[in-house]
């Protein structure tokens, strides 16, 4: 059994491991080298692997994400770090128009084995240009695989299978998780295709991912003290969604509540609820429900930021509403 480590250390060990195992792997991004990573994930890797493989880039998201695609086409296995999801919008063109589309539009000739990592999410008073959760947008795009490690085990284990995937994989690391401690567990067994039941229960299904998983688990504890037993599902993979795990749980609990830090309209939560209605409508005892971020640019002031995000209290309140009359 490996000792407990932080989510950040787990990501770093995963990088170190991949760099050691495969000479084609290299990391590039803003401040990944000398600075040690804006979230200190790659600290120490420059010293271990040198500047060719821990490659500091200029502030050119479009340029270096595009170059990552080219390097993947050229036979390398690049890991590109984008500082935050908000900055990734500067690279949306190569991600969407090239990485995601290339294999299909070339008639199957070119796969893009690229991994892009980025921080996402709010909670650190970083305001409206550093705090959004846009992974749901990326999950809209055919050709991409979208991962959201919420545990130390997944932070440690998801990178290697992502690198083995012949197609582009985006990994979203919630900024609130970097200091979280946990067991890396069976990280060698981690897959990048399934959702996981993180807590078993019979009365309702809480569906969460990334930064909202911890909040959903806390809400489940509170609800349990009132006698409401929640099953908590960690989506883990946002595209393609693991419908089978979701429907199995909803079929059992007959109530579903999605917790998504993205904005409500056109959200990942909307997609999940639609699928539940399409596939499990007649097994439901109540309309599916969701707790999302308020539809505002995330504000700076702490009380306003808190009010804008899903919280344990709002999840509990939504669960009460969902279970009313049960």
């Amino acid at each position, binding site marked *: 059994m490996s000792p407990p480590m932080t989510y950040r250390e787990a990501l770093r060990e995963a990088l170190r491991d991949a760099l050691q195992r495969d000479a084609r792997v*290299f990391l590039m991004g803003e401040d990944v080298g000398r600075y040690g990573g804006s979230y200190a994930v790659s600290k120490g890797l420059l010293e271990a692997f040198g500047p060719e493989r821990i490659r500091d880039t*200029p502030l*050119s998201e479009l*340029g270096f994400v*595009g*170059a990552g695609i080219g*390097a993947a086409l050229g036979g390398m296995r690049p890991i590109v770090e984008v500082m935050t999801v908000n900055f990734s919008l500067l690279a949306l063109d190569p991600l969407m128009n090239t990485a995601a589309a290339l294999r299909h539009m*070339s008639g199957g000739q070119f796969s893009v084995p690229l991994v892009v990592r980025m921080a996402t999410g709010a909670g650190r008073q970083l305001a409206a240009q550093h705090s959004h959760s846009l992974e749901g947008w990326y999950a809209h795009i055919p*050709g991409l695989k979208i991962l959201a490690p919420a545990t130390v085990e997944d932070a440690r284990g998801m990178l290697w299978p992502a690198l083995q995937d012949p197609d582009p994989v985006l990994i979203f690391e919630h900024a609130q998780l970097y200091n979280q401690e946990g067991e890396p567990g069976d990280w060698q067994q981690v897959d990048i295709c399934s959702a996981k039941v993180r807590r078993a229960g019979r009365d309702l299904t809480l569906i969460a991912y990334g930064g909202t998983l911890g909040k959903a688990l806390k809400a489940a504890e509170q609800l349990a003290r009132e006698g409401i037993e929640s099953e908590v599902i960690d989506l883990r993979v946002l595209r393609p969604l693991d419908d089978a795990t979701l429907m199995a749980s909803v079929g059992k609990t007959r109530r579903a509540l999605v917790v998504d830090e993205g904005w409500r309209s056109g959200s990942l939560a909307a997609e999940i609820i639609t699928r539940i209605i399409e596939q499990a409508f007649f097994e439901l005892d109540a309309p599916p429900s969701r707790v999302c971020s308020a539809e505002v640019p995330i504000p700076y002031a702490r009380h306003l930021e808190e009010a804008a995000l899903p919280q344990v209290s709002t999840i509990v309140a939504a669960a009460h509403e969902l279970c009313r009359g049960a």
Partner: protein
Amino acid sequence: MSPQPLPYAHDVLLALLRDMLRIRRFEERAAELYGEGKIRGFLHLYIGEEAVAVGALHALGAHDAVVSTYREHGHALLKGVPMQAIFAEMYGRQEGCSRGRGGSMHLFDAKTRFYGGNAIVAGGLPLAVGLALADRMQGKADVSVCFFGEGAMAEGAFHESMNLAALWQLPVLFCCENNLYAMGTALARSQSQTDLCAKASAYKVATQAVDGMDVIAVYQATTAALEHIRAGLGPYFLAFQTYRFRAHSMFDPELYRDKAEVEQWKARGPLHTYSARLKAQGVLDEAGFLAMAAQVEAEVEAAIAYAEAGSLEPVEDLYRDVHTPEPAP
């Protein structure tokens, strides 16, 4: 007309003319087929600019990578993509070089290292930088060549790519095809610095301005640029002055330029000036020219017949290749 003798063997000189004719005739027929409704979508013709693709690609090695734009028929043909696969692609047939998924703007060919066919202006430049980075990291001696128009030089991707290539001293050859118009917007109306080499020089990239209507000048400049890159001296930028004789696309009414201007440039057309030069130097006579033209005509018609006889990809295959299939166990 250059009075100087042309410094290459006759077969080389004739191959340059033959390839310009191949592109010209390919595209003239493509325009006709568009008129007949056989080809749809966008069709961006390269007519007038042939000397650039032919001169540049004749200087390249087979292993060098090429990244191009949506006006890429000529680059694809010269990189070695079979003409019949290109026509089949434009017909939307599964025998096409992209199985009919891409059309005119998205020609791809892994075998010849032809990386498209990119229809986002300047979208190919970062790809070329990454391909060059991969080659360098794997110890390969190949060069990545990227074609783009002068319009791309207003995009951020151009500036970011020039900076990355120069900063990392990567083996990239940047080939700007300056046909003076970004769709309908003249260079001087859209960019404060119209000296394109000055823009590239700002990134400490070696540059050369080239007469893109003269296939020999293009060939020589590209050869020299490749020598510079292969010697490990970093990326190179070539600014080819050329001109598009046809409209931007089949939907363009050409309201933004004078017919007189087009006629002036046509007088400098790369095919007739070069064939006249070959005749003046005794490399080619009229009978030889006609024989060459007939040969090209036969290739084009055979390629069209191939496309006509092609088949449609089954609709059941619509989702094929969104992702790479799992390898068979």
